[in-house]
């Protein structure tokens, strides 16, 4: 139970004097910002990020969060006025958008308006993977820095990273000037957080071991939920994975997270009856759906990527080579 002191501490917004003044001058609500200074204090950098302006000095390595560019304005289907007119006053309350919500709205609107999506779906048998996972987890040290607990999702990250290396045409980004062919598989993983989602990235997942991926992912997800990620930890990436399996979703289509060319929507792993040879046998099956940016990935390329992914997932030993 929160004491009064805790509650009032929570209400107090930590912000530097300069940040307060800059926010006031720009008409920004400090309450809508997430601080990146010590103890989550809002500092100048956060105000500049919110306003979409760069730093004044050339300061090495200071990634500036890309939060709503001012040039962009989503075209609303209906004006706010018209929407409000459809409901009785008092039948709703208005919650102001926070920054994360604005970013999600902007980026996904851009994605659906500018990226020609198509979808490929395939079932993967997980029986071998489940057995391998069980044996690997049993072999983990009980504690210490080298302990791990692999999830199915860790295998999916690794398989996607390796598949992208085998089908490099799909590890790419569309730009007007030319195709960016990426050298590394930087795999973003959607993490639901209160009020939205983050997509932290496992960089160079193709060279990392499953336990490294697993521990890194656990750390990223934990910090994503606390909104303690640095911009370089969620910006960029070459593909992403959205897994709704834990909610029992059988299959779904995901919206590509620009500037990626693909996103893999992962459904739940369930026991199903499958035809093996001439008989029917029980098996653990998971459906995955790959959304492709048709400017980058054509049907056959997408199918090759998904086929390679499936081969890794169904025979996980291959990921060790």
């Amino acid at each position, binding site marked *: 139970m929160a004491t009064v002191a805790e509650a009032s501490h929570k209400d107090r917004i930590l912000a*530097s*004097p*300069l*940040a307060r*003044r*800059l926010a006031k*001058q720009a008409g920004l609500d400090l309450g809508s910002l997430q601080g*990146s200074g010590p103890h989550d204090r809002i*500092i*100048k*950098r956060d105000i500049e990020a919110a306003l979409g302006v760069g730093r*004044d*000095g050339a*300061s*090495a*390595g*200071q990634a500036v969060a890309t939060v709503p560019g001012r040039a962009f304005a989503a075209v609303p289907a209906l004006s706010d006025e018209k929407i409000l007119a459809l409901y009785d006053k008092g039948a709703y309350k208005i919650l102001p958008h926070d920054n994360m919500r604005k970013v999600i709205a902007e980026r996904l609107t851009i994605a659906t308006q500018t990226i020609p999506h198509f979808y490929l779906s395939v079932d993967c048998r997980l029986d071998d993977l489940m057995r391998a996972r069980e044996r690997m987890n049993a072999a983990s040290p009980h504690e210490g820095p080298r302990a791990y607990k692999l999830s199915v999702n860790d295998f999916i990250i690794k398989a996607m990273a390796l598949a992208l290396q085998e089908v490099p045409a799909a590890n790419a980004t569309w730009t007007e000037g030319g195709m960016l062919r990426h050298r590394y598989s930087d795999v973003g993983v959607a993490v639901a957080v209160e009020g939205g989602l983050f997509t932290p990235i496992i960089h*160079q997942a193709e060279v990392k071991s499953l336990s490294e991926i697993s521990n890194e992912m656990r*750390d990223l997800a934990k*910090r994503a939920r606390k909104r303690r*990620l*640095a911009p*370089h*930890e969620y910006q960029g990436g070459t593909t992403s994975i959205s897994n709704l399996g834990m909610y029992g979703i059988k299959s779904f289509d995901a919206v590509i997270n620009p500037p990626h060319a693909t996103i893999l929507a992962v459904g739940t792993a369930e026991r199903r009856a499958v035809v093996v040879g001439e008989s029917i046998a029980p098996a653990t099956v998971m459906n995955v759906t790959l959304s492709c940016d048709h400017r980058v990935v054509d049907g056959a390329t997408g199918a090759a990527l998904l086929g390679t992914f499936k081969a890794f997932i169904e025979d996980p030993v291959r990921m060790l080579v």
Partner: protein
Amino acid sequence: MTSRDYDIVVLGAGPGGYVAAIRAAQLGFRTAIVERAHLGGICLNWGCIPTKALLRSAEIFRMCGRANEFGVTRGGKTRVDLKTLVGRSRTVAGELNTGVGFLLKKNCVDVIWGEARIVGPGKLAVRKLKKASEHTEPSAPKDALGPGDYAAQHIIVATGARPRVLPGLEPDGKLIWTYFEAMQPPAIPKSLLVIGSGAIGIEFASFYCALGADVTVVEILPEILPAEDAEIAALARKAFEKHGIKIFTDTKVVDLEKEADAVTATIEFGDGKRQTIKTERAISAVGVVGNVEGLGLEELSVTIDKETIVADGLGRTNVPGIYAIGDVAGAPMLAHKAEHEGVVCVEAIKRLNVHGLDKLRIPGCTYSDPQVASVGLTEDKAKAAGRQVRIGRFPFRANGKAFALGEREGLVKTIFDANTGELIGAHMVGAEVTELIQGFVIAMQLEATEEDLMRTVFPHPTLSEMMYESVLAAYGRAIHIPPAAGR
């Protein structure tokens, strides 16, 4: 895992390296540090610390010359005992060197003695130092590990920098010195040419001038202390010239002729005219270059640009698992910048710290007489960046403590963004300013505005009151200087 597998190995035990190693150990990493010559690096053994010891002697000598002014009389003539003076400087360095070894040991950081080469991802080969230069005095601390193969998940390169050698001005250790020789002179030369007027050149010029040498400084750029605010540098120049240092700016040394016990320099002024200067000795202080060679970096395709390793704000190079901090990772080449980069780098590996160092908040200090200290943008740079500025100036001659100390020359200058009240630069020249600047650095780091500084109580009587008054002056509110004419 063998006993030679580490989480982090740091190459180089200078201020960047040993601080990174201690921070790594604090965070629970299995840590080792490789050093080939001396714990504490150049800073502690041949740089920051021993020169401060020398300059302290020079200060005392100069104050003795002023003793009568303060009502203190001494019998006989004040003399310099050069052997004791240099010996004290070496002792100070030696004591701190031992201190670094003690700290590493107490933090369970393994010291590996030798020269390291990165032979593959995460792999190091450490060899015995092939040829010890006369300055390295290699002596391994007790308990140090020896040559061999070592493995580390993360390798932090902190190998520092060495004096830049310009063709024609090659130091020979006898007539043409670098800071190594200049720090332990066998005798005070009657005359001395200092080539380069950065912090190192100016400190030596100040030191030798105080001890009676006839000092000439040659700087290729239009003003001495080129990194400093032009107004402050000009004031410092006036003070140096008053002490008797001859200064030629916008001038280059085109030839340096060695004789038996003297050098003759041909200098060329901005207008093309030439002149020769004969001095007993010359100091080459034309900057430093990163120690990037022989580490195996080229083979691993680590990006190197202009003799420094290219690293991002968290010390990461283009090759995963290899990091660079401090001088070898680029300007500003300052010990405190290296220390902070070391901490940031290690905390980023631990995923604690995700923001790089803001280079506009790194102070710089020159320990000449008078001292110079600064942080942030100079007036020229602020204006070039298109900032509208408010500038405050407060002179030493209006401060009570400066009067009492008998130090009336100097200035504290503050630069604010006129629109936001952000403190974007602070520049000082005068006695003890190197100890004052930190107040403004904290203000910048905490993002104080002019209002916060004006509400801060500064103790009286102190030199720090000038900082307060300078802030007030930027807003036309200074108490102890008359309002500007016409108001």
